[in-house]
């Protein structure tokens, strides 16, 4: 469970409150208009932004004061998910040890996860020699290798074309199920949420509206969702 307990985030004149619980073991989509604070909320959960009030708990443990790297989560950013000077294998290996001194067993795990996302044979490439889809796969591979229970996605696939994005979401859903990962993903495409998210929540008017089943929500849109969809 990811609990946002009386959370309040302030950035200049911007203010966002969140007081809700996200279920573990499923994919939750986070939607909202541009500038509504989706990325800001993710940044707070990931530890890049200190909330002015409230706390964040994962599996009952308060993580509010932890350094980003110590939190039980991995994050895929909108861009710059890979270091351009490191190879694919090194970028992925950082998920196990930042100093890249991998044991034989860890190297095996590294090779396995690269195969899992379809990047075998590309280990020695640099990010600039990969397509956008392959770069996304490498970033996902690292998150899988880190094995943290939660995965936060800040629209990492938004630069991909529709077909590639669908492929990535499918891969995400399959791997998340197989590994028992809990996922919180920002998206502004309703069809993405409907395709992969078990639950969907919205940010409207500076507050996070608690999640509801995606199916039910789109079957009978709330006023906030209708406003977002422009209906």
């Amino acid at each position, binding site marked *: 469970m990811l609990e946002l307990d009386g959370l309040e985030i302030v950035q200049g004149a911007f203010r966002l409150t969140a007081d809700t619980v996200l279920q573990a073991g499923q994919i939750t989509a986070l939607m909202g208009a541009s500038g509504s604070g989706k990325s800001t909320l993710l940044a707070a959960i990931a530890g*890049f932004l200190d909330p002015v009030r409230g706390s964040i708990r994962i599996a009952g443990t308060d993580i509010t004061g932890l350094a980003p*790297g110590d939190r039980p989560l991995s994050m895929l950013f909108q861009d710059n998910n890979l*270091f351009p000077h490191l190879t694919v294998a090194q970028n992925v290996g950082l998920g196990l040890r*930042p100093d890249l001194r991998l044991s034989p067993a860890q190297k095996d795990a590294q090779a396995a996860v690269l195969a899992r996302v379809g990047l075998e044979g590309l280990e020695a490439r640099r990010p600039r020699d990969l397509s956008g889809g392959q770069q996304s796969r490498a970033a996902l591979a690292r998150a899988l290798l880190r094995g943290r229970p939660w995965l936060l996605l800040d629209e990492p696939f938004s630069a991909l074309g529709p077909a590639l994005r669908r492929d990535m979401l499918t891969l995400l859903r399959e791997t998340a199920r197989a590994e028992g990962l809990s996922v919180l993903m920002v998206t502004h495409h309703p069809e993405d949420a409907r395709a992969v998210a078990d639950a969907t929540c919205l940010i409207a008017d500076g507050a996070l509206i608690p999640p509801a089943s995606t199916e039910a929500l789109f079957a009978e849109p709330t006023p906030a969702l209708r406003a977002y969809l422009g209906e």
Partner: protein
Amino acid sequence: MSRGPGTRLGTAAALAVLVVLLGPLLAVAWRAEGWAGLRASDWGALRFTLWQAACSSALSVLLAIPVARALARRRFAGRDAVVLLLGAPFILPVIVAVLGLVAVFGRTGPIAWIAGLAGLDPPSIYGAQGVILAHVFFNMPLATRLILQGWQAIPGERLRLAAALGFGPGDTFRLLEWPMLRATVPGVALVIFLICTTSFAVALALGGGPRATTVELAIYQAFRFDFDLGRAAALGGVQLALGGLAAFAALRLTLPSGFGAGQDRVVPRWDSSGPLLRGQDGGVIALACAFLLLPMVLVLAEGALHLTNLPAAVWTAAARSLAIALGAALLTVGLALAMAVAALRAPWVEAAGTLAVAASPLVLGTGLYLLLLPLANPIAFALPVTLLVNVVLALPFALRALIPAMRELDADYGRLSASLGLTGWVWLRRVGLPRLRRPAGFAAGLTAALAAGDLGVITLFATPEQATLPLMLYQLMGSYRMEEAKAAALLLVILSLGLFWLFERGSRDA
């Protein structure tokens, strides 16, 4: 983000720099016994400093305008090399340039020979005119680079419009170029004026005497000849006021960004294709190149003939200079890296590092001498003090190269690094050094070149047994051993430009 160790190290480094900087200044201020200690000749030095700076600045700018215009409107093979040549004086050891100017304009040089054929007796290279000539040698290229930027900032659309309206060269000048020059030239002239007020090595080698002594040189003389520390300190206060202004202006405007990069754009021109103007531009560029190259060629070519019979003492001095250059480069880049990390969180760190531009080497040297005096024989610390002063003086340039790069790195990969737990040394090895090798290499090269060629604080302290290569070169010149001096100059150029090239190129490849 949470690079705790780096931030702490950088903050400590910034504090250390502040101590090294402010300690000597406080010592100077404490020791200076007010303005009463200054003699009439000291006020004369201040007047000369301001006068020669005004002359040098005006001449540099006047000569630079036609060169910049020629470079702005001509495309020719070797244009990149000319732009590169204009950047070179920034890292050329001052004493080598002085030796070259003596070779060209001195009694036995080609200018005197030609003038002799015409029955004229040209003025001596020594004295005020020599000081100004050397300042023009260093600052005309700088002025050209800065004014060229102004020319290249004239939008191409304007020039196209001018062509469509049938402007002649006179119309273009009046309506487009003159407004640009009016906006650019005063700033350039001010920067060069301020740079010339801090001149020491040029004045030491070519000036001196009642009519050609700068304040920096007066500090040296009060210190070295009269051993009047109170007067040296009072002069230091005068210089500090001058230098504070100079340095900030210089730092903002003068550092060549990666040497010639981005100055290759030639705006197409339709108004100046006539043979007369082409001839004029070609002649101007050729003259400028000759002015910059001839002194170097005369010195270095003759130096090459005598390189093999240099006395052992010169080689030892070269080894000292190499050690100081490498030490300064490593220390400066290390400090600058740590301070750039800290500056992400604490902006005062950048200000602390940049403050060093306000200090002149001789003022710092005098202050450090005063601080060391109660503790030990300062002469024994000549080389460490030289190293320290070079580190402090190079730090603002290193920070200026590294801080923007560090900000960009943090913006692009700070969160990724933090989310993967990449911190401290692991971050430095895996992310910091690989991503910052270009600016770090540039900073290291610049520091090494400046430190190798520095003829400043070392003149205050050193005994002959501690001479660095520039000091040795100065002493060889002083005893008219010109052949050996030229060979030593070649060695010094190889050392400082070679170090710059190695660091800078080394950081580009691989």
